[in-house]
C-alpha cells in the first residue's frame, strides 16, 4: 500500500459502506479486505452451522478446474433470529455469493450477499435500537432495584450506546467492535501514556486482529463485558450476597461480584500470583446504584472494545444504575498508573432486551 494511513482510512470508510456486520465475533476487516470484492457462482458442498460464524462451502468451476471456497457468514444466533435455519441451504443447492476476499489469499470470502433460487438469503437486518425509557425500575421487596428479570419473565442487557471505551466528554466514532472511524482520533480516546497510546494505535491499525477474545476465546474482563454484542445478564443471588454477571458471547462466561463485605485480597483464588480476567470484585449499594470495586486483573485480555491497553495495576470502580425498566446506566472509572497518565471515566447505557433468553453462544463452537 502506497500510503498506509490514507489507505486504512479509505478502507475503513469502504468497510462501513459495504458491510454492516451486526455482531460479528471478530472484526470482519481484520480477516477480509473490503477493497477486494468478488462474485462466486457454484454448488453448496457443506454447511457448517456453528458459532461464532456459519460457513457455507461451495464448489466453483467445473471438472478439473473445480475449487472449493469457504463463505463466512454471521453467527447462528443472528441467522436464527432472522429466521434462517441449518437446512436453509443444502449440499447440491446452486448459490451466488457476492463478498470480499480474505487478506491472506486463501479461498475464503465474507458473504455480503448470498442468493439461492433467485432469493436473497442469510441477510440479517440491522436491528432498530429503541432507546425510549421503559416503565419504573423493577424492585425487590427490600426496595433495591432489580438488575435482572422479574420472576416469570426473561430478558438481558445489550446494545451499548457506546462501542468503544472513550473518555467521557469526547465524541469518538467507532464501529461495533471499537474500530475507530478516524484513526486520527487515537490521542483523544483516553489519557494514554506514550507506550499505551502506541500499542492502542497498533491494535487499531491491525484492525483488532490480535484480539485475544477473537484468537483464543479468552474472557472479556472489565468494561468490555458491557459492550459485548450478545449482552449480559445479572443473576442476583440474595441468599449468598453475590451477583453473577453472565456474558452471552465469548464462552458464555460468568463474573462474580461479592456483596458480603469480604475484602479483595485472597478471595476467589485471586492474589498477586494469580491475577484474573474478571479481577476480584466487591460491591455495595449506594442508594439505587450498585458500586463495584475491582482489582487483581491479569494482562492477557483486552479490557475494552477497540483494544485499549491496561496493566495489572488496573483498578476499576463501576457503577450500575437501572434508571428505568429498559435502561441500565454503566459508569466506570479507570485508574491504571501503568498505562494512563491520570484517572479517567467513561460510561454508556445498555438496553433491556425483554422476553428473550441470553444468547447461547460459544466462541469455540466451530473449532476442532
Amino acid at each position, binding site marked *: 500500500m502506497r500510503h498506509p494511513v490514507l489507505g486504512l482510512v479509505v478502507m475503513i470508510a469502504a468497510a462501513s459502506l459495504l458491510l454492516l456486520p451486526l455482531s460479528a465475533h471478530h472484526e470482519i476487516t481484520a*480477516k477480509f479486505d473490503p477493497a477486494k470484492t468478488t462474485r462466486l457462482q457454484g454448488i453448496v458442498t457443506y454447511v*457448517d*452451522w456453528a458459532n461464532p*460464524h456459519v*460457513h457455507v462451502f461451495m464448489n466453483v468451476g467445473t471438472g478439473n478446474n473445480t475449487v472449493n471456497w*469457504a463463505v*463466512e457468514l454471521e453467527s*447462528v444466533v443472528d441467522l*436464527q433470529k432472522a429466521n434462517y*435455519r*441449518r437446512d436453509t441451504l443444502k449440499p447440491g443447492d446452486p448459490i451466488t455469493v457476492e463478498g470480499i476476499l*480474505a487478506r*491472506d489469499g*486463501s479461498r*475464503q470470502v465474507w458473504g455480503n450477499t448470498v442468493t439461492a433460487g433467485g432469493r436473497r438469503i442469510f441477510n440479517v437486518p440491522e436491528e432498530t435500537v429503541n432507546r425510549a425509557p421503559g416503565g419504573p425500575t423493577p424492585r425487590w421487596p427490600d426496595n433495591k432495584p432489580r438488575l*435482572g*428479570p422479574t*420472576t*416469570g419473565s426473561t430478558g438481558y442487557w445489550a446494545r451499548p450506546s457506546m462501542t468503544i471505551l472513550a473518555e467521557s466528554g469526547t465524541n469518538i466514532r467507532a464501529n461495533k467492535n471499537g474500530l475507530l472511524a478516524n484513526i486520527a482520533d487515537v490521542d483523544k480516546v483516553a489519557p494514554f501514556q506514550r507506550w499505551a497510546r502506541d500499542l492502542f494505535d497498533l491494535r487499531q491499525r491491525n484492525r483488532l*486482529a490480535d484480539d485475544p477474545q477473537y*484468537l*483464543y*476465546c*479468552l*474472557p472479556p474482563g472489565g468494561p468490555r463485558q458491557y459492550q459485548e454484542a450478545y449482552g449480559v445478564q445479572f*443473576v*442476583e*443471588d*440474595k*441468599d*449468598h450476597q453475590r451477583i*453473577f454477571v*453472565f456474558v452471552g458471547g465469548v*464462552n*458464555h*462466561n*460468568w463474573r*462474580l461480584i461479592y456483596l458480603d463485605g469480604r475484602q479483595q485480597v485472597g478471595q*476467589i*483464588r*485471586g492474589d498477586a*500470583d*494469580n491475577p*484474573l*480476567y*474478571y479481577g476480584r470484585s466487591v460491591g455495595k449499594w449506594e442508594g439505587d446504584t450498585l458500586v463495584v470495586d475491582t482489582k487483581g486483573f491479569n494482562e*492477557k485480555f483486552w479490557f475494552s472494545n477497540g483494544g485499549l491497553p491496561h496493566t495489572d495495576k488496573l483498578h476499576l470502580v463501576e457503577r450500575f444504575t437501572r434508571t428505568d425498566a429498559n435502561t441500565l446506566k454503566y459508569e466506570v472509572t479507570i485508574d491504571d498508573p501503568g498505562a494512563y497518565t491520570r484517572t479517567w471515566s467513561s460510561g454508556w447505557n445498555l438496553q433491556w432486551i425483554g422476553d428473550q433468553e441470553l444468547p*447461547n453462544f*460459544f466462541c*469455540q*463452537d*466451530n*473449532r*476442532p
Partner: protein
Amino acid sequence: MSRQSRRIRVRRHAPGLCILVIGVALSASGQTPQRGAGQGAPAAAAADGGGRGAPAAPAKPTPRKPDGKPALGTMPGEVALWLPAGGGGERFVNADTADPSPDKLRMSEVPMQPWARALLDDRIANQLEPHTRCKPSGGPRQFLTPYGVEILEMPELKQILIFDLGGPHTYRAIYMDGRQHPPDLQPSYYGHSVGRWEGDTLVIDTVGFNEKFWMDRQGTPHTDRLRMTEKLTRTDYNTIKYEVTIDDSGAYTRPWTSGFNLRWVANSELFEYVCQDNNYAPDLMVGTQEFVDRTSKIVP
C-alpha cells in the same frame, strides 16, 4: 500442596491419561491447573474430611428448603461445592477389570452399536478429548472434573444453574418453569434441560446435544439423537446420588443407566478458572486464525 490436589496431578499424569498432543506440555490440557495446583484445588481438599481414606463421619440428614424439597445447592450462609466422590478419577462407566457394582455399568455391559464400540476404542487409544481443548462438556462429564460444580437453585428465576469450575468458565441452566423443549434446537454442548421434582429426586430431561464433547473422560460416545435423563438425589448431607439414563438410538441398541456419587465439600467456593489461560496447544484448540482449517485431527 494438598493431598487431594497431588492425587489429581498424579492421575492426570498417569500414562493412560497422558496424551501426546502435538508434543506440547501435557499438563497444559483442559482441567489441569497450571498456576499452582496447590492453589487450585485446595479448598476442595481441605474441607469436610476430604478424600478417600479419611474416616467417614456420620453424615447429617439431607437439608431441606422451606418448601420441603431437598436442597441441592447451599442453604443461605453456606458455601460448598460438589465434587465427584472418587475425585478427578471418578468414572461414569467402570473399566471391565472393576468389581461389579449395582450403580455403575462396566464398559462391556454398555449396549454399544459396533461403530460406537470402535470409536470408543479409538478414543481410548488416542485420548484427544475436547474437554482438554477447553470445550464445555455436557451430561455426566460436567460433574466429573476434579474441581467439581456448584449447584445454584434460583427459585426467583425458576432455574437451577450448574457452574462447572473446570473448563472454559461457563455454566448450564436447567429450566424449572414447566416449559417444553423448543422445536428446532441448535445442538449445543449442554443441550436444552428441563427439570422437575419426583418426590425427593430432581429429574432433568435434556435433548439438543451436539456431538462435540465426550460424556466422560474415557470417551463413551453419543450422537445428536441423545436424550439424557439425569436423576439427582441428595441422600444425606454429604452425598448426591447421580444417575443417568442414556437413550441414544444412534449409538446404542437400547437405553442404559449408570451413575456415580457426588461429595459435598463445605467451605469451598467458585473461583475463576479459565481453561484457555495456559493452554499450550492454542493451534490445536482454535485451528489457528483460519478457523475453517480442518487439517488437524478431529475426534468428533
